[in-house]
């Protein structure tokens, strides 16, 4: 029974940690709206460039996907296409802004 309780406690703790990790980060202080949109456009442009350079070597961009789906696809492609963490972040921003 002790083992059972220990296993349950460990699994619950790991679930709790994953939930915490999955929470969105606290947003940075608000900046001027046009500066924000400019930097967003720049990020998206860079994301598109990375998509074409890496993913576009084999296939077209997929039809619309939810951010959670895109995140899973990108994790899959980090292994398959050896994307870097930065590639993943920028392409995520491009595919699911």
């Amino acid at each position: 029974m002790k083992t059972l309780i220990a296993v349950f406690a460990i699994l619950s703790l790991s679930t709790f940690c994953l939930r915490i990790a999955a929470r969105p980060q606290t947003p940075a202080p608000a900046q001027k709206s046009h500066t924000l949109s400019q930097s967003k456009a720049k990020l998206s442009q860079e994301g598109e460039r990375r998509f074409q350079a890496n993913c576009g070597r084999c296939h077209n961009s997929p039809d619309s996907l939810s951010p959670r789906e895109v995140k899973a696809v990108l994790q899959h492609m980090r292994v398959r296409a050896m994307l870097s963490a930065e590639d993943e972040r920028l392409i995520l921003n491009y595919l699911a802004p």
Partner: protein
Amino acid sequence: MKGDYPKDAIVNKIVVALLVAFSCASALFAQSSTPILSGGMQFVGTSNAGVDFFQPVISPVLAAPVGDHWLIESRGELQGFFAREDGTTGPYQGQFFTTFDYAQLDYIANSHLTITVGRFLTPFNIYNERYGPAWIRNFQDPAIIYTIGTRSTASSDGFMLRGVAVAHENWEWNYTAYFSALSNIKNLQSGRAAGGRTGIFLPIKGIEIGVSYQRFLQNGDYSAQGSYLVWQPPSIPFDVRAEYAHSPGGQGYWLEAAYRLAANRRNTAGLARLQPVARIQQFSAGTPSPNAFLPSRDTNRVDFGLNYYLPHEVRLNGSYGRQFTPGGNSNIWNFQITYRFLFPAWPGGSK
């Protein structure tokens, strides 16, 4: 004694199993990503030297991230083969086959290192890992040299290390190294082998070049070497892919070019959905070996095809190939329709 096994212990084990399943499910639901089911469905009609056959194929891929560093991924294939009873006459008959391409656990340590254990696609050159999926490859038939370094199953059972060793804005150096054990388990066959691949990628120019090596550690050890080139100029939708491979069973190369009839890669209207493709192959036979799965005679081949990308991830492809061998030449016609799918494996994942 099996019959004397205490009931409490069985109940405890069941409860633990349920808790594990529940916690795993909770952990997956709690993530910012969701497990996905993707892949391709394809129907291929072929006429090879006057022999007609049809192949329906479904190839699902499961990718289940667990946190930011762990990933479980798997791909299987269900393929049918229907041909006339006597080759060119008689009623059609056929059967279905299943294959298990990979089932692996990945630990993504960082951008430089991913550790993989389980069954994975053998990373020799680039065709097997990148252009093998039905919804990606331009021609239905794989290259003649495809089995060099991958043999019959194209999968390995063991472990693999891979990643981008060095990354700069203008160039990246990637690598893969693996060891595979011998396995004769049905659907999980693999050979005892070790090898690796390394390449340089220039993202701004769209060029990648690399080399592969494999040492096959059974049936009288032998080596296979390969090299590859990919070129995609960013300014125009033109792709060039090529591979060279050598083994005691023979050596050869393939060179494939594709051009999307568009001013740029973002254009998807009208004629921009059309993509002519061409491939040339030359193979020079070496020492015949039943384990090499290579032609026993010199073989040359040219293919011409046309891709049409319909909306909703559907693609039509038709191709004509001419094969030249000392024993005679033959025509190969292919027509295929391919559907690429992707949806969440859990309910609610598309939110």
